């Protein structure tokens, strides 16, 4: 069987990983370059091996090999071809293999880059990344094996196991390795079992957003292993200068970008598929992916202080450890959903290994950090509380408090159930009340911090740049908002901060462009191009801030001004929402092209003040397994989305229930998302000259200044 080749490839990758750990550690300790090279080669072979094994799973899904437990679970004869391929990450076992595969590709990227700047770090980078790689491969092999086949026990039960019936099943189970026993062996006397057809992917997961969402999320998760591995290598070697930060800056930025794109795709998926009018439900799984992004954002900012000023070294180590721990927990939670209940944790085969690994990783990293505290002393003191450094520290504190608030909301139900045996739900209202207000100072800092100079800013100069244009613009915006009838204090505060932060960014761009345009006589577009090109990090960062500002507009609009109504309409009847009238015309059955689903579609006409605008067709998909999906029909503009859902209907089609939302400004959110992506790409775009200068000149230039301050 082809999947046996895949299984063998995974086992070889697992063995290579273990060898790479041993060889790299030995090579580093004995100062034997040949062992390190050997470890590197062993690490390099993992990506091709895992590519092969992932391909065999895809092949199995495509050819309908239902003997394989995983294929029977995520694929079926009715599944479209594209989804058979993406079913590789449609279920838990396949997605863990997928995770390992992506990770091996990232590691290959690190191994192949130039080693010149980090010759001492590399053996330990190999060791740390391979420990993580081996952990995930151990999960794949021992606890959640996608290569397990189906077997039928003498008592008629159907289950998956890699190697078939064996007395080892009983032996292993009796000595407490029940989970491993179940993954590897079927109970004695079991016979092979092949179902007639597979179950296929859950309907909700068939949307393109859900197809692209996990890979981006995983790329983000996986990407953070690189800065984590370099940080640990720095601690292990005692080479705790900022080499690890400079080397991994772009990796971190890409990981952060992928995670951000993953979150955005998840939001868009929720908006387009789940049909509840919103995009973010503060679900445990969403939060689990958001938290590493939050601490990662803090990390991205605070490393700048270490690069520029040699400060906050311990803090940066702490942040990357925290981020990576949240990545591991995030992978675990998104994969198993165990937060929902302690009982599902007990049922999950990978729960205990995951928690054990997270615990060991945290303890080990923190212990390592504590042993190196002396090497991580700050090179400089803070000159003033009114400085970029202080602003960054405050911003970091805010990010961590927000991270903490989200963590409390996410994990509290578990503790409530464990400690007082009272299951509770922490829903959106908690986050609205707790996280919402914390965003206000964060946006204010986002606006002001880029204007505060390093070391010490003069209040007069800061006041001049921070207020001259942005101040009046904000006041004018507030007056306009008030004039058009906005009275909600949160909306006014939020918009004021957003307009302020946005104006600061635009002014910064304008000042830079004007300076370039005048002095070397560049044209306006060329001036803008060069401005960004010469300082990608700064202006990419500003672009990211602009994206966040635009998203903020969308969040305020949808959050504070969403309207909704639900009404049952007979044919020809009209409901009113906002300025719109929605008239029900008829119900129809639409051919779906898939044997396991039917589509019922309604035709509604939308008009505004009696003027017909367009016809919408909200529909519901009904699957033979009983699941239903109600995606919205949208009429969108930058002002608002009219979001129409078909809820239910009478069998004869004479009456249908509609749920209609008006989501003001929601498209600013998506636009902001795109700007955020562009900005990050600008900031991450390689700039060889700038890098080289950064490696040498900048730090040296900073050094005398640092001495002078003491």
């Amino acid at each position, binding site marked *: 069987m082809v999947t046996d080749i895949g299984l063998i490839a995974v086992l070889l990758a697992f063995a290579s990983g273990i060898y790479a750990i041993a060889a790299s550690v030995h090579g580093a300790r004995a100062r034997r370059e040949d062992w390190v090279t050997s470890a590197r080669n062993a690490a390099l072979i993992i990506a091709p091996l895992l590519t092969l094994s992932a391909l065999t799973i895809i092949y199995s899904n495509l050819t309908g090999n239902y003997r394989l437990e995983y294929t029977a679970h995520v694929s079926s004869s009715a599944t479209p071809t594209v989804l058979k391929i993406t079913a590789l990450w449609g279920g838990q076992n396949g997605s863990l293999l997928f995770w390992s595969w992506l990770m091996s590709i990232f590691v290959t990227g690190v191994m192949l880059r130039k080693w010149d700047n980090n010759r001492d770090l590399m053996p330990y980078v190999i060791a740390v990344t391979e420990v993580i790689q081996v952990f995930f491969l151990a999960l794949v092999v021992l606890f959640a094996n996608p290569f397990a086949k189906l077997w039928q026990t003498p008592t008629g039960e159907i289950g998956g196991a890699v190697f078939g019936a064996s007395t080892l099943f009983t032996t292993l189970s009796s000595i407490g390795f029940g989970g491993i026993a179940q993954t590897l062996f079927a109970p004695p006397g079991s016979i092979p079992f092949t179902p007639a057809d597979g179950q296929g992917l859950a309907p909700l997961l068939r949307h393109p957003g859900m197809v692209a969402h996990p890979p981006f999320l995983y790329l983000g998760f996986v990407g953070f292993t690189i800065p984590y591995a370099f940080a640990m290598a720095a601690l292990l070697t005692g080479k705790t200068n900022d080499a690890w930060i400079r080397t991994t800056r772009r990796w971190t930025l890409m990981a952060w970008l992928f995670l951000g794109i993953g979150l955005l795709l998840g939001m868009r998926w929720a908006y387009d598929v789940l*049909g*509840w009018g919103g995009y973010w439900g*503060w*679900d*445990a799984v969403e939060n689990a992916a958001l938290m590493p992004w939050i601490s990662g954002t803090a990390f991205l900012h605070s490393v700048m202080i270490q690069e*520029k*000023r040699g400060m906050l070294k311990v803090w940066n180590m702490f942040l990357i450890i925290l981020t990576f721990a949240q990545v591991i927990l995030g992978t675990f939670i998104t994969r198993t*959903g165990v937060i*929902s209940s302690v009982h599902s944790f007990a049922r999950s085969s990978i729960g205990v290994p995951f928690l054990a690994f997270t615990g060991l990783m945290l303890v080990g990293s923190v212990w390592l950090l504590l042993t190196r505290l002396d090497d991580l002393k*700050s090179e400089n*003191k*803070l*000159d*003033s*509380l*009114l400085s970029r*450094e202080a602003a960054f*520290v*405050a911003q970091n*504190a805010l990010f961590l*408090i927000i991270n*903490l*608030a989200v963590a*409390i*909301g996410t994990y*509290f139900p578990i503790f*409530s159930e464990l400690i007082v045996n*009272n*299951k*509770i*739900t*922490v*829903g*959106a*209202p*908690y986050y609205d009340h*707790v996280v919402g207000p*914390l965003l206000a100072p964060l946006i204010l800092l986002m606006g002001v911090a880029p204007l505060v*100079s*390093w*070391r*010490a*800013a*003069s*209040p007069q100069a800061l006041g001049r740049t921070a207020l001259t244009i942005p101040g009046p613009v904000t006041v004018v915006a507030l007056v306009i908002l008030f004039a058009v009838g906005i009275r909600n204090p949160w909306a006014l505060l939020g918009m004021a901060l957003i307009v302020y932060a946005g104006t600061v960014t635009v002014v910064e761009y304008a000042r830079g462009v*004007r*300076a370039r345009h*005048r002095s070397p006589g560049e044209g306006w577009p060329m001036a803008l191009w060069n401005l960004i090109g010469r*300082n990608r990090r*700064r202006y990419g960062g500003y672009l990211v801030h602009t994206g966040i500002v635009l998203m903020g507009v969308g969040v305020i609009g949808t959050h504070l001004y969403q309207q*909704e*109504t*639900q*009404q049952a309409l007979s044919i020809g009847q009209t409901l009113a929402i906002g300025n719109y009238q929605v008239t029900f015309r008829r119900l129809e059955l639409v051919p779906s092209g898939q044997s396991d689903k039917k589509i019922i579609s309604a035709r509604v006409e939308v008009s505004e003040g009696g003027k017909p605008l367009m016809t919408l067709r909200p529909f519901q998909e009904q699957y033979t397994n009983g699941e*239903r999906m*109600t995606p919205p029909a949208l009429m969108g503009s930058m002002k608002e989305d009219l979001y129409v859902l078909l809820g239910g209907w009478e069998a004869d089609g004479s009456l249908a*229930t509609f749920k209609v939302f008006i989501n003001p400004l929601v498209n600013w959110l998506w636009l902001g998302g795109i700007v955020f992506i562009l900005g990050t790409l600008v900031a991450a775009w390689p700039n060889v000259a700038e890098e080289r200068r950064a490696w040498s000149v900048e730090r040296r230039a*900073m050094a005398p200044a640092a001495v002078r*301050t*003491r």
Partner: protein
Amino acid sequence: MQEADRKARVAGGRVQRIAWGVVVLVGALASLLAANIVAAQGGTVTDDQVNAVAKGLNCPVCENVPLDVCETQACVQWRDLIRQKLAAGETPEQVIAYFRATYGDRVLQSPPNTGFAALVWVLPFAGLIAGVVILVVVLRRMTARPAGVEVMTEVPPSADEYRQRLERELERLGK
């Protein structure tokens, strides 16, 4: 005298007008109230009223899905129950209290602010306060001079080379 008489009459008229006003107002309120009760008992509960109550509750079978947007059969039944209770004249608070008493705290979207669950509301603020305290302590320890001393008197050269250059260019061009 005439003047006082006129004043008394005017005052009397005012009292009368106020009295009438009160009567009209009470009447209006009473009829509004009656209309409300009639409406409630007449069973004209709209879907929006049901959803407004359901928003504060959770789906009984899924995790963390608000009841007003859930499509499962269990949720449809619960929403029907809400409709019946509202139609019978119960207030939204009474309906929610009923669900909480019957199914436990987990049906509430927003955790209760009593008992152990209240911690979830307290902890973030404890975290916020601790965070701010730590921030202040750390910033003080990081600062070169003891806090409180005016550090602004002499501004060290900005280390932000780029910004400085920009400022210089802007200044030069401004002239």
